[in-house]
C-alpha cells in the first residue's frame, strides 16, 4: 500500500523533485561506484524536465548498471544479457510516444551485445543509450571487458592471469562510425557536465549515445588515471563534423567530455515507419478482402 500511495503523490505533486523518481529499492552498488552518479543525474534531469514517469520506459541489460530500472520509478524492463537495444527498439516501435532509455555497461553493450549497437545507431531509433563504462566486469567479480585499457588497474582480472593482448574498443569512436545521430561522453565524477550531457541526449530526436566513464571502485579504480586527462569540448569543435569528432574520440592523451556529434535533422526510425503507413479507410476487413481477391 505504501508503494501505491507514493506513486499517487508522484502524479499529483508538481513540480516533481529528483527523489520522486527514485524507487523504494536501494542500489546494491559498492560505495564509490560511478553508477550512483549516473542514477542521480538521470533523476535530476527527469525532475528538471518534469518528465511524466508514466511515459518513460528504461530497458537494461545485465551487469551492475543493468539494475538501473529497479531504482527508478517509471516503467522498466530488465531483460537478458546484451539485448537491451533490440528490446528497446521493440518498445519504441510499439508506442512511439514513449520516452525510451537504454542503460547497459561496456560488457553488455560492447561484448555480448556488440552486434546490436551498429543497427540501433544506423536505424536512428528514437531512444537514449547510456553506457556506463567501468572497463571491467563487476557483477561477475573482475574479468577484463572490451574496454579494459590498463590491466594494472584490474584488481583480480581472474580470467587474464598472464596478461591481456586485446586492444580495447573506443565506444565513442564506434558510435560515430556506426552513424549515431548524437554522440557524447560524460564522467560520473563530473556531475554537472554529466547532467548537462544527459539532458541534451534526452532532447535529441533520434539515437542518442552517451558513454559515461563510470569507474569501478572494487575491481578497476580508474579515478586517479582518468581525472587528470579530462578536457571539456568547447565551441571550437564543430558539432556537425563527424571526422573532427573522431579525432577527439581517438585522442590518446585526453579524455574529452561533452557532445562530440549531433545531426538533429535525420528522420527517426519511428518517423519512417509512420511515413509508409497508409491505414486502409475501410478497416481491416476491407483491406483483407482486397488482398484475398489477389489470390483468386
Amino acid at each position, binding site marked *: 500500500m505504501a508503494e501505491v500511495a507514493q506513486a499517487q503523490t508522484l502524479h499529483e505533486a508538481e513540480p516533481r523533485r529528483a527523489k520522486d523518481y527514485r*524507487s523504494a*529499492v536501494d542500489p*546494491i552498488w559498492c560505495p564509490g561506484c560511478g553508477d550512483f552518479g549516473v542514477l542521480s543525474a538521470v533523476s535530476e534531469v527527469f525532475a528538471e524536465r518534469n518528465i511524466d514517469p508514466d511515459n518513460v*520506459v528504461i*530497458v537494461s541489460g545485465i551487469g551492475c548498471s543493468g*539494475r538501473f530500472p*529497479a531504482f527508478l520509478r517509471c516503467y*522498466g*524492463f*530488465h*531483460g*537478458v544479457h546484451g*539485448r537491451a*537495444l*533490440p*528490446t*528497446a*527498439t*521493440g*518498445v*519504441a*516501435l*510499439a*508506442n512511439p510516444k*514513449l520516452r525510451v532509455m537504454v542503460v547497459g555497461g561496456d560488457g553488455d553493450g560492447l561484448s555480448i551485445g556488440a*552486434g*546490436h549497437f*551498429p*543497427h540501433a545507431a544506423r536505424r536512428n531509433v528514437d531512444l537514449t543509450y547510456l553506457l556506463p563504462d567501468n572497463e571491467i566486469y563487476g557483477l561477475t567479480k573482475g574479468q577484463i571487458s572490451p574496454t579494459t585499457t590498463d590491466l594494472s588497474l584490474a584488481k583480480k582480472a581472474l580470467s587474464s592471469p598472464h596478461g591481456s593482448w586485446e586492444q580495447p574498443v573506443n565506444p565513442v569512436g564506434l558510435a560515430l562510425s556506426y552513424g549515431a545521430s548524437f554522440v557524447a561522453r560524460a564522467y560520473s565524477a563530473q556531475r554537472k557536465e554529466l547532467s548537462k550531457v544527459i539532458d541534451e541526449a534526452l532532447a535529441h530526436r533520434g539515437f542518442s549515445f552517451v558513454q559515461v566513464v563510470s569507474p569501478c571502485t572494487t575491481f578497476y579504480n580508474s579515478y586517479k588515471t582518468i581525472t587528470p586527462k579530462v578536457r571539456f569540448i568547447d565551441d571550437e569543435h564543430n558539432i556537425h563534423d563527424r571526422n573532427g569528432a573522431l579525432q577527439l574520440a581517438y585522442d590518446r592523451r585526453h579524455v574529452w567530455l561533452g557532445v562530440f556529434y549531433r545531426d538533429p535533422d535525420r528522420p527517426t*526510425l519511428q518517423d519512417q*515507419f509512420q511515413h*509508409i*503507413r*497508409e*491505414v*486502409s479507410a475501410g478497416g*481491416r*476487413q476491407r*483491406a*483483407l*478482402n482486397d*488482398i*484475398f481477391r489477389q*489470390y*483468386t
Partner: protein
Amino acid sequence: MSDFIVKVGGEGGTDSPTTAGEFITLSAIREGNSVFTLRTLPAEIKGGLATYQVRVSSEHVSSQGDGPDVLMCMNQESYDELIDELDLEGGVLVYDTDSVQLAPQNGADHRLYYGVPMTSIASDEVKERRTKNMVLLGVFSALFGLGLDTLKRCVEDKYGRRGPELVQLNHAALDAGARFVAEKLKKADPFWFQPNPERSGVERMVVDGSDAVAMGAAAAGLQVYAGYPITPASDIMHWLAKFLPQFGGTVIQTEDEIAALGCCLGASFAGAKTMSATSGPGLSLMTEMLGLGVMCELPVVVVDAQRGGPATGLPTKCENGDLNIAVLGTHGDAPRIVVAPANIRDCFYDTVGAFNLAEKYQSPVILLSDQSMAMRTQAMEPPDVDTIQRHDEHGSPSTNNGTLAAAMMDKRYRKVQAARFESGWSRTHGPETAKIGAIGWGSLEGALAEAVDRINANGGTARMLHLRMLAPLPVEEIEAFAATVDKVVVCELNFSGQLNHMIRAETDVRSSLIRKYDGVPFTPRELAAALQEELNHG
C-alpha cells in the same frame, strides 16, 4: 470423379514450368476442382531444374498424393531427373520433342508417350520462344480436358494489365498447342478433368502456407513484426512488409533472430501484438529470449517453418524435428504453448488461434509449420474476417525470496497447463474404434488420412488422431483415443520420434513409431504400407 496428379518440369526462368503449373491450378479451381500443389526449387539461385506438381480432384483433396500420373517435360534435364517417378503401368509422359531425347525403353514400360514440338511451335508458329509454357498449357487443355476458355480468362486476368498484345500472344500459343493435339495426337489415356460446377467458386483462393500465416497474423491484429531472413520462413516477412502498413502495423528486419525476438518482447511489453517467423537455426538463437518471454509472461507468437536439421541442415527440405526445442528449448523450466497447423486453412486460422492463446494465457506461443507447408498451395474459402474471434499482470531484481520464485513458477505452469483443455486443437478421422490408431502432427495429416482410408478400404481397421496443440500435451485426449484402438503408432517426420517420446513420457500409452527423415514428406502410399506392416506384425 476425377483425381490425378500432374507434374511439370523445365528450366527455371526460361521454360517457366512454375507459371504453367500455376495456370493449371488456377483454372482447375475455377472449374470447381480441389487442388494440392508441391513445388521444388532448384538449389541454384537462378536457373536450374524447377518443378511444379499439382493434384487436381473434382472432390476435396488433403494431400499431395503419391507420384505423378502425368509428367510434362520441357527439357532434357527434367526428363532425365523425373521420368523414374512416372508409374510404369499407365503413367503418361508429354514431352518437348525439340529438346528431349528419350532413353531406350525396355519391355516392362507400359507408359504412354505424347511428343509435341513445343519449342518450334512457340518459335515458328507463335513467333515467340518464351510462349513455350503456354503451348504446353494448350496441349494440356486439349489432352486432359481443362477448359481452354477458362485458361484464356486466367491469362487475361493475370496479364491484362500489361496490355492486349501480351494477352493475344499467349492466347495464340494456347490455341497452337491445342490445335497440335487435335490434328496430330490420338488420346489413349484415361485422365480427363471433370468440372464440378457445384463446388465452383467455393475454395476459390489459392494460397501457400507462408501467405496464409501472414494473412492470419494481419487478421489477428498483428502490430509489430520483427524477423531475420531465413529459408523457408522469409516469405512470411515479405508478405507482411508489403501489406502490414495498411493495417497500421510495422515490420522490421533485424540484425539477427535474437534481436528479432527481443524486439517482439519489447513491443509486447509496450502493449502491441507481436510476431516473429523463423526456421530451426533461428529458433535455436531465440531460445534465451523465449525463456525471458515465458518468465515475463509476455504474449508473442513465434512461427517456426521447420526444415531439415541440425545446424544449417537442409534449408530447402522438409523435416518435423523441432518439436523438442519448441516445447523444451531454453534453460530452466519454461512452460509455453506449442501449436502445429496441418494444412493451409489451418495456417490461417491457427495463426489467429495462436494470437488468441498468447493473449489469453499471456505466454509465448510457438506455431510449428514446415517447409512443405510453407511452399505448397491449397485452395481455401476466403476467410470471413468479421467472424474471427480476437482477444484483446512489476519486476525488481530478485531478493533471495525463494517462496516468491516458487510461487511464480507454480503460476506459470498452472496457467499454461490449462491450455490443454482448449477445444478444437485436434481432429480425428476414421471409425470410432479400430485395430490400429495413428497419431500425427504437422503437415502429414492429409497423407495420413488417406493412408487410414486405404487401410479401411482394404479390410483393415484404422483411425487417427491429429494433434495441433503439442504443448501442453493433451494427455487426457491421447489416453482416451488409445482406449479406442488395440495399438497406437505415432507418425512423424523426424528420426527420434519426438512426439512419441513425449507421449510415452507423459501418458500411459505405449506407442510405437513410424518415421521418415529424408527431407521429403510422407506419401499416402508410404504411410499405408507402414500402417499395414504394423497391423500384420503388431
